[in-house]
């Protein structure tokens, strides 16, 4: 069987599942639903596995298939005056990069589907949930398998929609539907950038096909195709805006923590493992363009690094278990983006895949905790759970070890590579990443200690119901735990005796970019084994100290933590309120634009938020009101005024009609008089 030829079917299986759910879901028993939906994903996974297997044996490790011409636009002129045809195919591309993505997406996706069977067993709208999940899988697979930017954009928007639907799954909860809407709209801001980026691409290269754009970019690098640097910069920056929205980078990260309002499997699948990595994927996919624009690369790296540390600090002060994980996700995405920014696309994608395992596991574990605690999410009301839910505890432990980069765990390899490459690019980035690593260890282990260690702080009511999750949930946990441990071995670095097969696997995709980077680098990076060992040691060290700090503050000296909080009251409040970014955004966009009439929504100190924010919000509201005002008074008013004038003049005109015949006669005489005067004065 030729799996390569049938890669176009990979997204279709889940789509089929989704359609079945849409049309018949209501009438199907839950059992059947829980068979069909994970089943379709499994089939996709198997087909993908087969296809990747066959891909590996292809010489150029690249396979493209076109179903049909999707958007057959018309002729247009590129900026260099050449003619081109606007065309986008409904076509699929399997190359090493998309192979990694498709396997991660279908694999992790399948596990999460299985998990959801147990997790969502008692929810209303079971079929609806799985319908959305399958629809999501369809979109995500379209995204990663697309052979052009426009089709990628289909998946891109599709996942956004599913995210909207799934976050808003508990639609009767206002916070949930708010969060869904916020996610979609914030993403749309990014999308706008993405679309514009595509237009620049079309205008410059005449195509949106990955292969063609890549080829053209290579030509640019070779100096055969003249493109002004600023064009490339603007193009890549706009594409990056899209990535910022989707991958929740500062300042568009705000939607992701709120997205935790959705069911936990959703958080695991969409907001940790797959969808949010789409941005990273897209940047990696456009690696050739990005490396041609050094300024963009610097901005990308900067944004990534900043987001990493920024989100990590926020993660420190959160008490909601899922929110901690959410900020952790933002932070880890920052790592990946930073990796891309320094040209380490391979490392970024590597971290993407390992992160998918352990972060999904963390979320699922958290879900399992929440499930067992009947929905409790506040870590301050947990504690000592390690004996009550052992499987969850142990798997969670694995994930926690992986995320902080414990040697031999998957996170160790990917994170270490990023740190190393960051160092070789810019020590400042390394410092930031290094500190973030410590913070990561701190907040994740704070979470672990608060949840599983110490004395129980549970409500008695809740405590009586604590139970381990069903098998459908624990088995995926165990599988993911295995991946968290072993998933990174594929990228065992050379200095540790490995061959970094992962890097080599991606070679065909990132090779050209690497050459360009290498050519552009002013000084040849010193590839010293010693340095690598040193850096590795340092990062393990800071992770360990982070864990210890967590232990110290949470278990050993609780009051020290309180004192610390009090001592740094302002800072803590800022952190707990996520630097008020949300408030600013809310004020400016969401409230400002949408809730024009805004009741007192300011939940934060007016002293903290300066008048500027207020002003901005007021301004948006004002414009909106002004628009309406303009409509009613100026545009309509002008019309009404003329109507009014017509009516008003009607009355004086009527008043001329006095009903007195001699007045009429006088008018006749006047008429004659005017006539004569006209001739007299002519």
């Amino acid at each position: 069987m030729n799996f390569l030829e049938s890669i176009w079917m990979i997204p279709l299986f889940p789509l089929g599942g989704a359609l079945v759910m849409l049309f018949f879901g209501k009438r199907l028993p839950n059992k059947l639903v829980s068979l069909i939906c994970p089943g379709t994903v499994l089939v996709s996974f198997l087909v993908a596995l087969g296809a990747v297997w066959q891909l590996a044996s292809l010489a150029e490790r690249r396979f493209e298939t076109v179903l049909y011409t999707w958007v057959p636009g018309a002729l247009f002129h590129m900026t260099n005056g050449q003619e081109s045809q606007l065309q986008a195919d409904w076509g699929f591309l399997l190359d090493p990069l998309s192979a990694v993505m498709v396997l991660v997406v279908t694999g992790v996706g399948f596990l999460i589907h299985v998990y959801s069977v147990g997790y969502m067993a008692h929810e209303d709208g079971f079929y609806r949930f799985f319908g959305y999940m399958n629809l999501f899988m369809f979109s995500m697979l379209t995204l990663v398998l697309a052979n052009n930017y426009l089709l990628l954009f289909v998946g891109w928007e599709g996942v956004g929609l599913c995210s909207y639907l799934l976050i808003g799954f508990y639609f009767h909860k206002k916070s949930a539907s708010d969060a869904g809407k916020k996610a979609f709209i914030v993403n749309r801001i990014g999308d706008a950038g993405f679309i514009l980026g595509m237009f620049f691409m079309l205008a410059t290269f005449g195509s949106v096909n990955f292969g063609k754009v890549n080829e053209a970019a290579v030509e640019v690098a070779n100096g055969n195709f003249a493109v002004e640097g600023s064009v490339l910069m603007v193009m890549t920056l706009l594409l990056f805006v899209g990535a910022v929205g989707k991958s929740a980078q500062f300042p568009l990260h705000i939607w992701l923590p709120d997205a935790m309002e959705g069911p936990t499997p959703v958080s695991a699948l969409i907001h940790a493992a797959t969808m949010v990595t789409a941005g990273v994927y897209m940047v990696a996919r456009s690696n050739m363009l990005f490396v041609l624009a050094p300024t963009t690369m610097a901005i990308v790296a900067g944004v990534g690094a900043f987001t990493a540390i920024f989100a990590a600090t926020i993660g420190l002060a959160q008490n909601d278990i899922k929110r901690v994980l959410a900020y952790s996700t933002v932070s880890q995405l920052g790592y990946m983006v930073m990796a891309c920014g320094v040209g380490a696309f391979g490392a970024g994608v590597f971290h993407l895949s390992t992160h998918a395992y352990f972060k999904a596991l963390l979320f699922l574990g958290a879900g399992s905790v929440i499930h067992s605690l009947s929905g409790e999410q506040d870590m301050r009301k947990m504690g000592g759970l390690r004996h009550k839910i052992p499987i969850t505890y142990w798997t969670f432990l694995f994930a926690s070890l992986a995320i902080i980069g414990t040697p031999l765990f998957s996170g160790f390899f990917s994170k270490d590579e990023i740190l190393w490459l960051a160092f070789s690019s810019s020590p400042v980035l390394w410092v930031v990443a290094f500190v973030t690593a410590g913070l990561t260890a701190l907040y994740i282990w704070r979470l672990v200690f608060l949840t599983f260690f110490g004395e129980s702080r549970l409500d008695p009511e809740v405590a009586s119901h604590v139970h381990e999750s069903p098998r459908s949930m624990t088995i995926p946990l165990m599988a993911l735990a295995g991946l968290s441990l072993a998933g990174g071995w594929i990228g065992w670095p050379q200095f540790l005796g490995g061959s970094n097969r992962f890097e080599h696997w991606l070679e065909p995709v990132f090779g050209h970019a690497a050459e360009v980077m290498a050519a552009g680098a002013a000084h040849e990076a010193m590839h010293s084994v010693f340095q690598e060992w040193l850096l590795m040691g340092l990062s393990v060290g800071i992770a360990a100290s982070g864990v210890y700090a967590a232990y110290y503050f949470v278990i050993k000296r609780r009051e020290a933590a309180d004192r610390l909080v009090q001592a740094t009251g302002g800072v803590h409040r800022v952190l707990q309120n996520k630097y008020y970014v949300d408030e600013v955004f809310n004020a400016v966009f969401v409230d400002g634009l949408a809730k024009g009439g805004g009741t007192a929504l300011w939940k934060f100190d007016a002293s903290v938020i300066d008048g500027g924010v207020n002003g901005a919000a007021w301004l948006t509201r004002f414009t909106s009101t002004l628009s309406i005002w303009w409509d009613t008074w100026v545009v309509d008013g002008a019309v009404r005024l003329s109507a009014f004038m017509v009516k008003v003049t009607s009355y004086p005109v009527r008043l001329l009609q006095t009903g007195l015949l001699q007045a009429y006669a006088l008018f006749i005489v006047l008429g004659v008089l005017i006539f004569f005067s006209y001739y007299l004065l002519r």
Partner: protein
Amino acid sequence: MPPVTPVHYLFLSTALFTIGVIGVLTRRNVIIILISIELIFNAVNINLVFFSSLFASVSGQTFAIFVIVAAAAEAAVGLGIIIALYRNKETVNADEIDLMKW
């Protein structure tokens, strides 16, 4: 006294015409308005007859006869209407005939 020229005749007729117009415009009594209109017609007749004699052709005089006929017809009908109006409204004042206006 300047010798009489055709312009004198025209001035005369215009003056009579004007008097008629003033009568129409200012008098309240409908009958007098009608009489003023007769003055206007007479002004026209002066013109016509003068031209007729000027051109030594009688068509002007014939025209004047028709004007007189028309004036007579209008006077007859007008007076009939005045009577009808008077019967209903008990007035012949023009400024009281303002049932319909605006």
